């Protein structure tokens, strides 16, 4: 018996199925209402969300395949989390700013970040390297939780500018244990910062289930820091959209931060380096497969007769096209010039870097001179 059960009751895994779970679309594709969060979308908007979900999943599958083919060193799949990302991502206004982890490909998509930009770091040609200001989408952050503080700081800047932007910072269930995330809660609360904390509780932090990170559902933690927290069905794109919209509106009104726990599931491996069969059951996976975010919206669309066959065919083609573009883009992505590693260490010149670069160049030139390759 594990020591963490000395009280005789290992606290049970969190099924997510409480009344607190905000849902607008059931796994069966039924629209339901929620007293606090409602949404009214046009057919085109429904189709827009569907398109996002499908394309993002396609992009993700393509990236996974590219990793298997050796074109990427690593890939962190968002499979299963499309609704949480598209729902929250589509709630954003252009002025808003996003602080992602390394898995927010769907949010990046909503921000208009070129999918190929995301792949650079996974291919190993850079560590990110896009201009965050272009789409108000910060670089991926790998150190767990670090970006939540950046998000709060950015939101403090927004306050000072008096602008109407707000911030969404993403993090995972595992990240909730990090000191940084909890410091971010404190700073956001104390400074009343216009920031939305969006946690994708995908039930796993690599091999560790959420019970290793928290004893009670995460959304409840917010209250103890002095701001609201809610749990939303993270596989329900409508609910994610509605709740994030509400949280952003609240932030814009100057009412401060809010925590959204999107209850979802990581259907794939943690990354392509991971082997989830070592630590989780197929049964669990099957259970979650029934809650698939795309299937439920598709089923709703079908039931409601939204979307023409042409729409779905065009989407299929667009999806193929995207896959091809990503494939080609990755395969032709050039390796960086080695000397570029010295280029951006500092904004201004730094004598040590300058000297080392010069030595590096001289050294490599010596091989060229000698007609041989240094490696």
């Amino acid at each position, binding site marked *: 018996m594990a020591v963490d059960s000395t009280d005789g009751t290992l606290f049970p895994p969190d099924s997510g199925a409480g009344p607190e779970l905000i849902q607008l679309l059931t796994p069966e594709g039924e629209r339901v209402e929620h007293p606090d969060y409602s949404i009214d979308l046009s057919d085109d908007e429904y189709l827009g969300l569907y398109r996002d979900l499908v394309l993002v999943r396609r992009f993700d599958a393509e990236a996974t395949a590219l990793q298997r083919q050796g074109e990427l060193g690593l890939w962190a799949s968002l499979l299963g989390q499309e609704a949480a990302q598209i729902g929250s991502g589509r709630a954003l206004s252009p002025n808003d*700013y996003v*602080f992602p982890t390394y898995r927010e490909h769907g949010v990046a998509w909503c921000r208009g970040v070129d999918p190929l930009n995301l792949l650079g770091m996974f291919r190993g040609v*850079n*560590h*990110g*390297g*896009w*201009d*965050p*200001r272009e789409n108000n989408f*910060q*670089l991926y*952050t790998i*150190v767990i939780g*670090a970006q*939540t*503080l*950046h*998000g*709060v*700081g*950015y*939101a*403090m*800047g*927004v306050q*000072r*500018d008096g602008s109407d932007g707000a911030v969404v910072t993403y993090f995972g269930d595992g990240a909730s244990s990090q*000191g*940084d995330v909890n*410091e*971010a809660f*404190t*700073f956001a609360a*104390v400074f009343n910062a216009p920031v939305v904390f969006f946690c994708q509780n995908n039930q796993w932090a690599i091999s560790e289930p959420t019970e290793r990170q928290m004893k009670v559902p995460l959304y409840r933690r917010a209250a103890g820091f002095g701001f609201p927290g809610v749990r939303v069905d993270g596989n329900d794109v409508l609910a994610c959209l509605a709740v994030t919209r509400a949280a952003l509106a609240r932030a814009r009104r100057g009412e401060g931060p809010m925590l959204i726990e999107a209850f979802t599931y990581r259907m794939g491996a943690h990354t392509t380096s991971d082997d989830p069969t070592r630590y989780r059951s197929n049964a669990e996976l099957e259970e979650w497969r029934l809650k698939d975010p795309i299937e439920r919206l598709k089923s709703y669309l079908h039931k409601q007769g939204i979307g023409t066959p042409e729409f779905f065919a065009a989407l299929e083609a667009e999806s193929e096209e995207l896959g091809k573009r990503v494939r080609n883009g990755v395969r032709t992505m050039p390796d960086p010039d080695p000397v570029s590693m010295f*280029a*951006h*260490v*500092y*904004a*201004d010149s*730094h*004598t*040590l*870097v300058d000297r080392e670069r010069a030595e590096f160049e001289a050294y490599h030139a010596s091989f060229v001179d000698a007609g041989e390759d240094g490696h």
Partner: protein
Amino acid sequence: MAPAESTGTSRQMSMVQALNTGLRKSLESDPKVLIMGEDIGKLGGVFRVTDGLQKDFGEDRVVDTPLAESGIVGTAIGLALAGYRPVVEIQFDGFVFPAYDQIVTQLAKMHARSLGYVKLPIVIRIPFGGGIGAVEHHSESPEAYFAHTAGLRVVSCSNPVDAYWMIQQAIASDDPVIFLEPKRRYWTKAEVDTAATPDPLYGSRVVRPGGACTVVAYGPMVATCLEAAAAAAEEGRELEVIDLRSLSPLDFDAVEKSVKRTGHLVVVHEAPSFLGIGAEVAATITERCFYHLEAPVLRVGGYHTPYPPSRVEEDYLPDLDRVLDAVDRSLAW
């Protein structure tokens, strides 16, 4: 820099006052400059470096933060992303470590990570070093941890004039700067001419010329080395004292030039010698001056121990005698 004369633009300042005046000037000249830290508002910081600034610039620009160093540096990074230029005060050297992850993995690397798209013009001010009779964690010299980290710049002022200019230059820098303030010299006074033209931030300065032996120091140890040089001069030995001022980048060219004349080098700092700045100076200068050195580069530094209780700190800290002892050993090699 030409010695300041007591004119209309010149006045006596302690290092604390010089820093305060420099911070004030930066706050005045750039509305994006912010100051953040613990107890820097009404209290004016535990050393009063920010005294009066919150009163004059408001709580939005001089921000008392929650007691969480990682949070301070992390939110400063976010503010910088939003176009601000935060100046962070860490209360004492020993309390910078909760922020170490944000400093090393985020602050230092963001510019390179973004291929230059993101600049983080953040200054982290740290009162550092010993000699004030303080309790544990209040007397440390963590500079090597930062100087070893690519992406950070590290500087230290040794006198009020530099303090006044260097803090403003650091704030104007587009790179993150670790700004080390020698707390035991906070109350040293000097004439500061606010109309003078400052030396560049990242260069060293010969603070006393001499031909017998080069002595290199920075921050709190510059005054100690100058005392040692004065004592040596009485015995007819002219030491050349160089104030490094910047530790990253480090002005090796100037040290090399001096050592090529003197043939002897002693490096002095409070931080432990093992893997301290002195090790790097010794390694690089030996490589550059191999045939000029008449003795190995000698180091005078702290020991490989935690900073000791204050009742024995005088025995830990390099002092005039230890500097002269090293000079003697070098000359007698």
